[in-house]
């Protein structure tokens, strides 16, 4: 940004307050990457302080980090930036543990961050792909709750999918 452009765009700043009281000061353009916040801002006479009682500060921080990256790149979008974004997204989800992944996903969904939900659900899907049923149960610590015989029945009905 050149320092001479002091004129027109006065960026509005929003205060986002998480469930544990942690607050974040973010530019409107960043926060409105989230559909829920965009809706609130578009309401007439909305205040600059937005309380988000359903999102913990840690995860709100991460969501906003993602928004910031993607809002910046939106302003001067070109092919190269697209690549950078993809790479950044990859890094962002690479080492997420299941706990963080879950809470991020719930937060992104609650805040209607559609693209972030895409990214995170894709990450969960990647943890399923190529795994056998037992391996999936192991990964997500799921116990089968089928009645005896039910699972066999589904297997039998769709035997082609288990070859």
């Amino acid at each position: 940004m050149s320092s001479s452009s002091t004129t027109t765009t006065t960026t509005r700043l929003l205060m986002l307050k998480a469930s544990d009281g942690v607050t974040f000061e973010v530019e409107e353009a960043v926060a409105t990457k989230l559909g829920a916040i965009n809706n609130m801002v578009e309401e007439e006479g909305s205040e600059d302080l937005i309380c988000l009682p359903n999102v913990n500060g840690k995860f709100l921080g991460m969501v906003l980090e993602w928004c910031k990256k993607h809002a910046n790149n939106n302003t001067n979008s070109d092919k190269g930036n697209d690549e950078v974004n993809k790479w950044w997204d990859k890094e962002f989800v690479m080492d997420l543990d299941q706990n963080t992944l879950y809470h991020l996903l719930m937060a992104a969904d609650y805040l209607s961050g559609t693209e972030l939900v895409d990214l995170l659900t894709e990450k969960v899907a990647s943890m399923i792909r190529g795994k056998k049923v037992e391996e999936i149960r192991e990964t997500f610590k799921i116990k089968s709750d089928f009645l005896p015989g039910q699972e066999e029945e589904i297997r039998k009905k769709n035997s082609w999918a288990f070859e």
Partner: protein
Amino acid sequence: TQQSRPSFEQEMVKRRSISKTAASKLISILNNDLLLEVFLRLPHRRSLIQCSIVCKRWFYVISHPQFSRRFFEYQNYKRSSDSSSYYSSLPYTILFRTSRNTRRPLGEIVSKKSEILQGIQYETTLPPNSSIRASFEDLLLLCRDWKEYCIYNPLTRQLLWLPDAPSPRNHLEKCGFVSELMNNGQYRFKVLLIIKYSDKENDDCVLDGATFCSETGKWSKAVFSFPKTLAPGYKTFEDFVVSNGILYSLVDAGDVKGFVAFDLSTDCTSKDDERKQCHFIELPINFGRGWRASRDKVCYGVVQGQLRLSQMVKMKREYDLKIWELDCKNIDYVYWVMLHRVRLKTEKKASMGVAAFHPNNADVIFMLRNQELYKYEIGKERYRVGELRGPDLPLRKYLIEDFFRFFQAFTVVYPPWPTLIPVLSNV
């Protein structure tokens, strides 16, 4: 302001019975909406079915009628936003045979790294005594003893024999079929049979045939015609390939003359014996005529759903390869667009011919070169041995004329959701 949606803490309380050590089990308590979003991103119905036996809730989400609709929507979105990466992710098999005996086991060109292709054994799972006559997407049209036809999904092994077609029938009959997904989520398919052709009438070539529609469960007679002047002295058709719902067959009169196109999308209930128009599509303007248009120099096939045509002619020490695609956005004015024209250098004695198009990659074809089958990237002097399998392999060495005399290729492309063959209601 109070939010209507439950918080994730509330969600956790609700599901505490499932999750005791929440930290490592959290994904398993995702709400159904998000779980559905995850499942949409799985590559194939095969993985979905496997997921459905993980636990009852996963089964519930995946088998819900709404899920298949969402899955189709998501795939359509993927295809429209980036069609070439969508297509390149689809596994395929090109089944081919090179002998007159149509029951002889086939060779296969298979796409790499495809889990779902592991389970398919064409030569052992086809119904006995049947031969492949046509393919459309992931379905095959099989014929048994030149009499009975059936639709077969080689992946799910779903099989449906059709009622007998109207007689008199003969072994020269040509066939093809198309299936489409209806608004109600069901597939409908139509089969076309051309039984007899004659040019005895003054101005028209007349084709006697029959069409079958899965909605009525019946065959009805159909007569097609096109002006004789378009293909003087034509001798034969071939079994059909399908692009954009239209069935195409090459017209051969010693040399290739053009294509006939049949549009079966008009309703199934039209009267018997009513003459229908089939369209004749002329060859591209810069297509070599006469000896250059002999059948072994011409190949056609469907690439990413579009009809393509190639011609490869030897000139001294190189081959001249041309590839066109049929542009049929405006159904009243279809025309060929030339996509490639390349010169291929060869040794003096080399013989080459195009065997098949890669169904998903517009820049790759399969080529018989020096008696072996290669995968060829158009425009690059690079040939790689195709990924082949089948009971006959390694391929015996073919002379190019022998190879193309009986060569037939059937391309099967496996969409993420296998086509479900409908049950015929009134059979």
